[in-house]
């Protein structure tokens, strides 16, 4: 009866909550002001170049490398470093202006998730027939959900006062939650798991006991310390009980 009432109560509670449910909507555009690191004094005309769309120069090769991070794991909210390799196959020196990057959704490239802070360079140049490496340290928003995202990284440079832009990386990154192995959620889950296993074990143990009791013979009925042997009833000699039994014996 009590269980029935409980069942009805819980179903009623569930039904009552339906109108209060709200689908979780996530922001598709998070413009965060992430800290970048500057290597020197900033050029005055940098703003003209950063954010513009220029073509890549012929004879310039770029490569992207995540040092000691071949899985391209990016902890949300923490600094990640990547190296941009530039090779100047041309005849004139190349001046690096800035490196910028942005994070997009993997299935729809037009959906921008976050614009990462551009790193501007003051005096970075690559002489002809030389390769050079430049670091780019970035951090995605710490509220970004873990998952696969698209990272597009471009480097803006100039050769003979003409600006050019090359994409050095256009691929996926794995955003993971920053934080150690021990957290409130993990401790709670582990304790819950252990307790469920223990409860299951106890229940199985109880079932075993029940089954083993059934297969035994009929349980012994406790009769107390006395016996029903008539010859042991010495103390009843001469009493009404004895006389009645002897009478019934005589009748037989």
């Amino acid at each position, binding site marked *: 009866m009590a269980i029935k009432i409980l069942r009805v109560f819980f179903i009623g509670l569930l039904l009552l909550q339906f109108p209060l449910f709200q689908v979780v909507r996530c922001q598709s555009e998070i413009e965060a002001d992430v800290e970048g690191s500057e290597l020197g004094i900033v050029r005055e005309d940098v703003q003209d170049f950063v954010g513009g769309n220029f073509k890549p120069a012929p004879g310039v090769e770029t490569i992207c*490398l995540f040092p000691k991070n071949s899985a391209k794991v990016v902890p949300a909210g923490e600094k990640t470093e990547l*190296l941009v*390799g530039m090779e100047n196959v041309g005849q004139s020196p190349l001046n690096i202006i800035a490196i910028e990057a942005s994070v997009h959704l993997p299935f729809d490239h037009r959906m921008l998730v976050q614009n990462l802070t551009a790193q501007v360079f003051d005096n*970075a140049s690559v002489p002809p027939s030389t*390769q050079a*490496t430049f*670091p780019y340290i970035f951090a995605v928003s710490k509220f970004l959900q873990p998952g696969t995202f698209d990272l597009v990284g471009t480097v803006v440079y100039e050769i003979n006062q003409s600006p050019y832009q090359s994409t050095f990386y256009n691929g996926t990154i794995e955003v993971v939650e920053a934080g150690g192995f021990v957290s409130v959620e993990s401790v709670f889950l582990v304790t819950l798991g252990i307790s469920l296993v223990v409860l299951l074990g106890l229940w199985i143990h109880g079932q075993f006991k029940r089954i083993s009791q059934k297969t035994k013979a009929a349980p012994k009925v406790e009769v107390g310390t006395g016996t029903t042997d008539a010859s042991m009833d010495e103390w009843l000699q001469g009493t009404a009980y004895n006389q009645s039994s002897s009478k019934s014996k005589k009748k037989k």
Partner: protein
Amino acid sequence: MARLIRNSLMKALILIFFASVATATGDAPFIVAHKKASLTRLKSGSERVSVSIDIYNQGFSTAYDVSLLDDSWPQDMFDIVSGNTSRSWERLDAGGLLSHSFELEAKKQGMFYGAPAVITFRIPTKAALQEAYSTPILPLDVLAERPPEKKFDWVKVAG
């Protein structure tokens, strides 16, 4: 009919594969060098700079006679404590990694802006020595004045 289509598809795929391999960017090594410098303040008050340089070959062929030279630490500001600022290796295969590290002791106080290290190597197709630069390092605040230790405040409170 299906077999014919499958065969021609296979041939087309193989053709595309070979074409893509042929147009892949170059067959030369691409040296990416990562230079890191960190400051450690010893108990004696002196400051040590630990420099480590990782050289990756992200290209498609081997680089021979790889030689690293880091001349960006002037003698009047730094003393070499352990290791050497230059080193050479016989080869660096495509996809390989070479590491080198050394330690310096700082002599002069101030901001230090380090230049990149230079890596030279040879490739079979060119006679001239190839050059590559490592990443520059962030400015180092050498022998900076640290704020006074908090533990002296505890003594004041207790006393």
